[in-house]
Each structure stands twice: as C-alpha cells, then as structure tokens.
C-alpha cells in the first residue's frame, strides 16, 4: 500500500492509499462542513443539502444521477455529521473516471426550487422516523445540556420547524461558503490509478473557487447535569451519558479508545460482565468519539423501567471503581488484541480504508497506515490509561434518561 497526495491550485486536495491487490476502489468527496458550522436559522441545512446534492446538476437530472451511479454498479451513499459531509462510492477499478465524473458534477448541484420542496418532505419523514426510535431525539438533547451554546451541541437533522422554515436561498448561500475548493478534498483507497485520478479531478474541479472559509472553534465548558424525560409510549427505559474525552488531535485518543473497550465494549468488557451477561439490561456500552477540539465518551444503557434505578447505580459504581482503581494488565491486553484484529479485518475492504484515510485527513491532515494504527494501539500503557482517567474522569458526565418513568425516583 502506498500513500499519494496532490493539491490543485485552487486548494482542492487529493489523497489516496493505493493498493494494487484490491478488487475495487473507494472514492469520496469529504467536505469540512456539518451541524457545527450552522447557525440557528439554518439548523439542519448541512444534512438537507446532502440530500439535495443527489437532486441533479445543470448536466444531470436527479433521475440521471441515480441511474448513472447504478449503471456503474456503484455502491454509493452519503452522510452528514456534526463536522463533515461525505459522499462516497465503491466501484470496480475500470469505473474510476465515470464515477469521479458523477461525484464531481453533483458537488455543484442545481438546488432547484421544486426539488428543494419535494426533498423537504423526505427530510421531515426522516426526522419523524428518528423521533419514533430510541433514543427519541435525546441524543440531541444531551449534547445541548452538556455543551450549552457551543456549536457541537447543534442537531444534525434540525427540527421539523427549522427544516420547514428553511428557504432555498439560505441553502444556496450556505453551499457557496462551505463547498469551496479549499474546504473539501477527494480521498481514494483500493485499486486507485492515482496519476489518472489527479487529471480526472483537475479537469472537473480545477475551476472551482476557494472561499477561505474557517470553522469557528470556540473553547467549550461542559456542564454536568441529570435530566429525566418521561415518554409513556416507550417500553424500555434508556439512559444516555456524555463525558469529556480526548479530542481528535490528542494523541491520547488511542488510550481513550482502549479504555472505552475495556469498560464498555459490547462484549467482554466490565459493563458486559456486570450488566449485559446477567441479563440485567438489554444493552450497556461506552464508546469514544472524536471531534475537532473536543472528544466525548458516550454511554448507553437500556433496560426495563422498574430496574433502571438499580442498574444506574450499578453503572455509577462501576465508573467510580474504574476511576479510582484503574484497569488491569490482562484487560488491556485483551482490549488491544480485539481492537487490533478489528483494524486488520476492517482494512480488507477498500471502502473501510477510504473512511479511514478520509477521516484522518479530515481531522489531522495526516495519513496513517494500518501499521501506524496497530503500533499506536500497542504502545498504550496502563499509565497512559491512568493519565486519561485523571484528565477526563468517566464519572463526570451529563445524563439524560427517557422512558416510561414519570420522574426519576430519589
């Protein structure tokens, strides 16, 4: 595997991990924009725009876009998060150019009024769908409680109201400032013809303008609180927790990931043995998520409402024990084996490598090979884990619980 990169004159970067042994190629446009770059009056615009990008260009109707992707046998999709919007496709290597042609074309969408109004309905359906599913919108609520007015607290979907009120012109101006050549890049992985890729991207995207857009990165002061939200239609009680953790640019993130694996992986972790294996909860887990300038531990527990208080106090006790006493060498060894195997197994698919290469470039403008990650995982010591616990206590958190409980018994 070989890393290659190139920057066009307008600032558009092209990065690729080339692997001649692969059967397919994964290609994507990564835009440095997401919910955190929005303002109140356009809440949800990044995600809505992601849908609109598939609705056609001056050269292609929406039907053409879908049809042409399918003609190439492409496996393609897009997603929007708090800080990025990603469009990707996996194809057989001979379709590298045609798929780049479609992807680069749709990066300059027409944003037509009638498509905007039609797609608005789909977005509202999507919002309603998530509102009916656990955690019933509480993932947004907990970010608001934890981060207050910090941009990371913004909802990716927005609400029925904000999306309903959004005008197409607002989307157009958001697009102009965010989808600029210096605020996005092309990533590729698998059987990539890199020299050809540079030419293919240059000829299609070389005339795009930079905008010198910057992301606002205010410091945050997280809050610690507890909220119980009654929802009588639910069967189970859900408990969500958010705590501060190492950020994307913090090298301690590897220790944080191993810590999360030891404490709250969905199998073989402390939460697994104490809560899941005995059947006390439906699920209990802890994961580490990284953003620019902030990281988070996100915990999730779901169980019968009548057992919620007891399970919650057990969870708190386990967090307290981990915080005070740390972890054992064999736990760390097991977590490392597991995480390393996941890295290796995941690396066999070019599509997975695409997200890895793209993710590293988004967060740190760096390339990390599979070996780099394996070494970083191996290098973590129990002292590192202790250091992370000290700096980012897992028992200082914001909690939101939602379910049939009218109020949390004290």
């Amino acid at each position: 595997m070989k890393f290659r990169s190139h920057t066009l004159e307008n600032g558009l970067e092209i990065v690729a991990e080339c692997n001649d042994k692969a059967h397919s190629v994964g290609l994507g446009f990564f835009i440095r924009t997401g919910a955190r770059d929005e303002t109140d009056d356009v809440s949800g615009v990044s995600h809505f725009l992601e849908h609109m990008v598939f609705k056609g260009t001056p050269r292609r109707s929406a039907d053409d876009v879908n049809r042409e992707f399918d003609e190439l046998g492409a496996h393609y999709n897009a997603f929007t998060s708090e800080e990025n919007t990603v469009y990707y496709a996996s194809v057989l290597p001979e379709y590298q150019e045609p798929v780049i042609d479609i992807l680069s074309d749709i990066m300059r969408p027409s944003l037509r009024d009638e498509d905007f109004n039609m797609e608005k309905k789909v977005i509202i359906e999507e919002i309603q769908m998530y509102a009916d599913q656990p955690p019933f919108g509480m993932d947004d609520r907990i970010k608001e409680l934890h981060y207050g007015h910090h941009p990371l607290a913004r909802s990716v979907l927005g609400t029925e109201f904000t999306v309903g009120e959004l005008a197409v012109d607002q989307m157009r101006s958001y697009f102009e400032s965010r989808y600029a050549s210096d605020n996005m890049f092309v990533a590729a992985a698998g059987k990539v013809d890199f020299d050809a890729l540079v030419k293919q991207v240059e000829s299609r995207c070389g005339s795009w303008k930079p905008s010198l857009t910057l992301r606002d990165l205010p410091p945050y002061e997280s809050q610690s609180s507890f909220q119980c939200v009654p929802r009588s239609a639910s069967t189970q009680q859900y408990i969500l927790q958010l705590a501060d953790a190492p950020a994307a640019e913090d090298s301690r993130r590897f220790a944080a990931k191993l810590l999360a694996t030891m404490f709250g992986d969905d199998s073989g972790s402390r939460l697994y043995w104490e809560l899941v294996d005995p059947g006390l909860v439906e699920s209990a887990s802890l994961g580490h998520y990284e953003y620019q300038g902030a990281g988070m531990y996100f915990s999730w527990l779901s169980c019968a409402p009548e057992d919620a208080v007891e399970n919650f106090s057990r969870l708190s006790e386990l967090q307290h024990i981990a915080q005070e006493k740390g972890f054992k060498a064999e736990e760390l060894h097991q977590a490392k084996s597991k995480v390393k195997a996941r890295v290796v197994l995941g690396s066999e698919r070019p599509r997975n490598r695409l997200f890895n290469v793209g993710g590293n470039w988004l967060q740190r403008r760096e390339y990390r090979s599979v070996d780099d990650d394996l070494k970083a995982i191996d290098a973590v010591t129990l002292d590192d884990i202790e250091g992370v616990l000290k700096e980012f206590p897992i028992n200082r958190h914001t909690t939101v619980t939602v379910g049939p409980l009218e109020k949390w018994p004290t």
Partner: protein
Amino acid sequence: MTATQDKTKQTTIFTHRLANGMTLVGEPSDSVQSAAITLLVPCGYSADPVDQQGLASVLCDMVLRGAGRRDGRSLINDLEVLGVERGESVGASQTSFSAATIAENLSEMLAIYADIVRRPRLPEDQLSAAKLVCLQEINSIEDEPSQRLMIELRKRTYPEPWGRSSHGSEAGIAIIESSDIQGHWSRYYRPNAAILGVAGSFRWEQLLEQVEALFGDWKASDVPMIVERQSDQSTPHIEYDSNQCHIGIAYPSVPYRDPNYLRAWAAVGILSGGMSSRLFTEVRERRGLCYTVSASLQTQLDRARVLCYAGTSEERAQETLNVTFAELLKLRNGILPEELARLKARIKSGLIMQQESTSSRSGSIAREWYHLGRVRTLDELGKLVDDLTGPMINEYLEAHPPQDFTFATLGPRPLELPCEIS
C-alpha cells in the same frame, strides 16, 4: 459484459462430507490476512416446541456460557484475545455461528467453536440470566416500530412455524427449564445437516485434517419432521403511538434452490436495489412520501416471500400504501432492458466486492451448500448473471405475477387495504 469472469480471481471451492453427515466447505485465498468461519447448526426456531418459543434462542445464549475446559468468562475472553469478531443468530432452520480473525488464529478459534457446539457446559445456574437476556431482546423490539411490523408481517405471511419471531415469546421463554435446554441441545446440535464454511487465508489439507479431528466423532441424531399448519390470522393492524405509520406487504416467491430463483431475485432487484429502482424512484424521489421504502426476497429452504416495507407520516400513509402496491402490480407488466442492465452491473460489482470480505464469503458458501447441496464459484455466478435476459425475467413474471398479498400496518390508525385485482 464479462467483467466478473475477468475480474474474479480463479478460486477453488473445496467440499468434504464427514462420515457423520457434516459438510465442510472451504474457499482459500492468499490475498487476505484474515480467515472467517460460518457454522450452521441445524437448530432453528421452527423446531421450538409450540409452547416454548424462544428455546433455540435461549440455547444459543447458553452454549456460549462455558464449553469444554472453559467457563463462560474464559470462553469469551479467550476468543477476544484471539481477536475474534463474532456473531450468532437463530434462523428458521439453523443457528448460525460466525467468527472472523487474523489467519494465524484460525485453528485455535475453530477448536473453541467445536467446544461450543459439541461440549457446552449449559450451566444450570446461568439459565435465568440467559432467559433474561432473551427477554430483554423481546422488550427492546417493542420500541422499534419497523422491526415489530416486519415480525408481524412474517407471522402473517408464512405458515406456522416458519414465520415465527426468532426471539420467541415471553410466555415461551418463561417456562423453559434446564432439562429443556439439555434435551434440545442433545437432539438438535448434531452433525448431520451441519455445515461449516471457511474462507480466507488457510491451507485446505490442513483445515480438513483439523475438522476431521474436531468433528469426526460427533454422533448423528434424528429429529422429528416439522409439521406445518395454517398460522392464526390476526387483524392486519397494530395500534401504536408513533409519528409514523409503518406498512408491510408480502407475497410468495420461489426459494433459492428453484431454477427460477435468479429471475425472481432480479425482479425484486428492479423493484428495490439501487436508487434508480422503481420503489425508491416512485415513492421517495417523485413523491417525497417517505424516507425508507424497500423490498427484498427472503428465502427459506422450501419457501420464499418478497417482503416490502415503507415508513411514513400518518397523513401520507394511505397514499404511500397505494403507490407502493401499484408498483408491485405493475411488475406484472414486465421489466425494461435498461433496468436489467443496471441491475446486472450492480450484482456483478457486488460479487467482485464480496471477495474483499472473508466473513461474507464464509457465510455465502455455507448457505449455498445448505440450499443447493453444492457451491458455485463467483465465476459461475457471474456467468449466470451474464446469461440473464429481459425476456427470461418477463416470462417468469408472467407465470408468477406478484399476487396473494399479505398486509400488516402499525401506527396510530389502520389503513384501507387494497383489494387485489388479478
């Protein structure tokens, strides 16, 4: 187009039948670092006693609570130290154990799985925990409206016991005792009809030798035939307090081993596969009626159904149902050549990309053996796709038009169900 023939690496698929009836299917590859297994044990939910639905599911949880010389904790921990990514599921006719790891750990992983299926400890003091785990799963589905709807749809469209929920029922799980677990395991966890699929970096001769040593002396056992009966027809609507209304439509199709299967599968692919497919285009893109709409062909050994799903806000639910249903009827008029060309491109790139995952290969070859009693290479499958023509699919659709529909809905209010026009 013959992309598949050119692009798939010429792989060989080896098969071997042990004297006790267990089948080993292996596809070695030297271009990957991993190895994966899929072990299909002939213990599905269809064999659960009618008053103990969920028995196979509880048993599946129990076999992981210690096996051979390991107790439950060391079993899971040892698998994790080997870097094993694992998953278990209970289907209509089988319990499936899948596991993948880096190639050098294959043989150790395999030995642990032999313990799990052949020498589980089935500890009595863990039964209540195992039952609780299974009950938790049932409760969690109550909060997942789309899953609940599809369980109901399957129940309504299949004859008993084929449409049961693999999770079983609360009442069924409640009365399970340790002797039931022991009895069910000794009867149903058996080599005859068991299939082990292995894909990835390994040597066939070596694997064969190890599998003979691990499973060769496993004793065969006979099980009673499954008796099929009409399922109880409940009302098609489940009242549910939600924003969206969930719609399910099912109709019969042909199972995997039927010579027409590929045609039936292709027809469903034209309905729902890729964003230019009919349902996505007509229901979502043109009308903005919903976020999710899909159809898939679900096959068991002797029967199959096409299952369609759409989720939409209540006020647009009736229109969504009508438009979706109209597309199913329209399929009777046949498909267009350009639709088939797109579908072929998707299938073929899918086949080639499948080589990039040893987990999905081990599962595919094990299931092929289950359905066909033989395994085709990706190369052969590619040729079959190449040979598929529009007239072949249209002929099939003419002989087997979508009909005999079953409906299920879940939401605040029932919908008006279409009368079938034939």
